[in-house]
């Protein structure tokens, strides 16, 4: 009788390291889901996202570049994260496609300060069909943190003066952010 009970206890399934790993992974998964749907809100990381209009400037690019952009083009970071959509010029300015010189950008000859023969700084423009400067805008989802700074998609810090590189399918845009405002 005593021997049988010893045998029974020996035959019980033992808890091994693999079980511990599986349980740990399951717990981590649960923790991840809880963090995603609960804690992020509590930490203010997923505040209510709304549409924002971000204006930008690009400088000293080839005059052919605006021809490869169209309204609604999706913008991405280098890692493929979607940022937003390009706006048509009429959506963020008083310009039309014809007066702006492009469907999405307000185009003008590139200009910069240079030094003339007398050593004085002068502001001069490049000739047509060489280099251009342009202003544009895109719409994105974002929010303001409790500290007052803008977070793109509730995560990435963005502010006027910041230089970022965004991509469409066919264009690389090295831009300076000039303004962020709630979309109308």
């Amino acid at each position: 009788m005593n021997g049988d009970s010893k045998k029974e206890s020996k035959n019980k399934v033992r808890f091994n390291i693999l079980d511990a790993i599986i349980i740990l992974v399951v717990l981590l998964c649960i923790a991840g889901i809880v963090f995603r749907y609960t804690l992020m809100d509590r930490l203010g990381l997923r505040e209510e996202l709304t549409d924002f209009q971000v204006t930008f400037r690009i400088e000293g690019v080839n005059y052919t570049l605006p021809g490869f952009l169209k309204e609604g083009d999706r913008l991405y970071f280098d890692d493929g994260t979607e940022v937003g959509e390009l706006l048509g010029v009429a959506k963020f300015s008083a310009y039309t496609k014809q007066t702006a010189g492009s469907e999405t950008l307000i185009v003008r000859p590139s200009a910069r300060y240079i030094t003339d023969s007398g050593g004085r700084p002068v502001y001069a423009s490049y000739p047509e069909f060489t280099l251009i400067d342009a202003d544009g805008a895109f719409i994105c989802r974002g929010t303001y943190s409790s500290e007052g700074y803008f977070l793109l998609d509730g995560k990435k810090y963005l502010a006027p003066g910041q230089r970022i590189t965004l991509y469409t399918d066919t264009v690389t845009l090295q831009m300076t952010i000039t303004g962020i405002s709630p979309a109308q």
Partner: protein
Amino acid sequence: MGYTISDERRRDSGENKPLHRRINVLDIIFIIVILLAALFVASFFTPLNIFGSKSEQRTISYTVEIEGVEAGLADSVRNGDVVYDSVSKSAVGVVTAVKKSDMVKYVYNPELGILEAVAYPQDNNQNTPKTLRITIQATADYSAGSGYRVKGSRISVGSPVTLCFPGFTGTGTCIAVYIVGGTEEAER
């Protein structure tokens, strides 16, 4: 399957159950399911796109402008030349057009108040640096967000591109990208 020699001995001696649990198919399936669940959760927090669109191959034509190329080297690039990848040395595309022009410098014209283009003067060997516009047709991998990539390098207007030929290499700026046979880009 799944039993050790000691388990065989134990079975022979009348003990039916094995002493140690072994990993079986069910455990492996369970682990795979958990790993997939973990990847799915991770996709919410990172740019990792597990269930994203696959890339597809498209033929593109792109133009690269390279400035300051020696006249002799500029003459060595011709239609039909093969462009090679600098790393893998494999062919990436074929030259379909070459346009050469004198390289210019933009200088301030005080009378007009603008910058104007002035061509570089010839040197003692009657050479002037050239600006090359080389158009290449190539097969690119396309996926949304990743754009067009030739041998892994993104081809997009405004980005730097290095072209390698057997007798010349140079880095310039991409100034045009068209999808061959596509109507959308061709209309622009």
